[in-house]
């Protein structure tokens, strides 16, 4: 009979521990959900199509001349490649920038609510590759691409 209280005690503490565990997991969830707003799958995708698909839900893009992609044709410093995307079309919802041959192609993406369809940044490139800009406008996906030559050593080529 003297063992019973102890067992009960053990059982209760275990139950409490489980509850606490569940509770703290629940507490952590909101923070985790906030962090998940950042599209982790799209940023960790290793292939261009996978990254576009993870970000927009489809990898079907049609080339468009209304997207102006301003990048150098030859980058002297692969750690600082200036890129400008101008989407000259109505209802631009999002612009995403990809470097096809980077370990993870997605560089950055921006969603718009009231600003012009324009995004500029500087990015790192692992090697000579196509730079792809994908623009979502009016529910459709458009793209533009340009090859950027990365010169190691800085002597042209």
């Amino acid at each position, binding site marked *: 009979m003297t063992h019973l209280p102890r067992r009960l005690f053990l059982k209760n503490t275990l139950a409490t521990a489980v509850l606490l565990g569940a509770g703290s997991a629940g507490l952590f969830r909101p923070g985790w959900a906030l962090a998940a707003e*950042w599209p982790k799958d799209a940023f960790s995708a290793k292939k261009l199509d996978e990254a576009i698909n993870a970000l927009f839900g489809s990898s079907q893009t049609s080339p468009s001349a209304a997207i102006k992609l301003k990048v150098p044709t030859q980058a002297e410093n692969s750690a600082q490649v200036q890129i400008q995307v101008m989407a000259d079309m109505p209802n631009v919802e999002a612009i995403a920038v990809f470097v096809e041959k980077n370990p993870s192609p997605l560089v950055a993406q921006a969603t718009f609510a009231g600003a*012009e369809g324009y*995004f500029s940044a*500087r990015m790192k*490139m692992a090697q000579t590759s196509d730079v792809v800009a994908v623009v979502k406008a009016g529910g459709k996906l458009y793209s533009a691409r340009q090859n950027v030559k990365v010169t190691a050593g800085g002597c042209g080529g």
Partner: protein
Amino acid sequence: MADIQTKIRTKTQGDVTDVLVLVDHPMETGQRPDPKDKDKKVPAHYIQKLTFSVNGKEVVSSDLGPAVSKDPLVGIKLKGAKPGDKIQVNWSDNTGKSGSGEATVG
């Protein structure tokens, strides 16, 4: 974070305002070997979220990846911004640090 600066510059031409943001951030990819210990890598540390608001209303929300260069310089364009409009930029990185900057359209 007072040690990481967020600078904003605006320039208005006609009815289009350029907004440029420079955040003093290392943007570590997590792939670079540690210069002191070759077997280790410098832990990833990069900005994930960068948002632009005009007078409190969010106009652009961007997600950045580790492929964005060190000290990211991000630009957007606004149409019809008036002098005196307040532009606010907020960012947060993968380690939970965050920062913000404010500027007025000149």
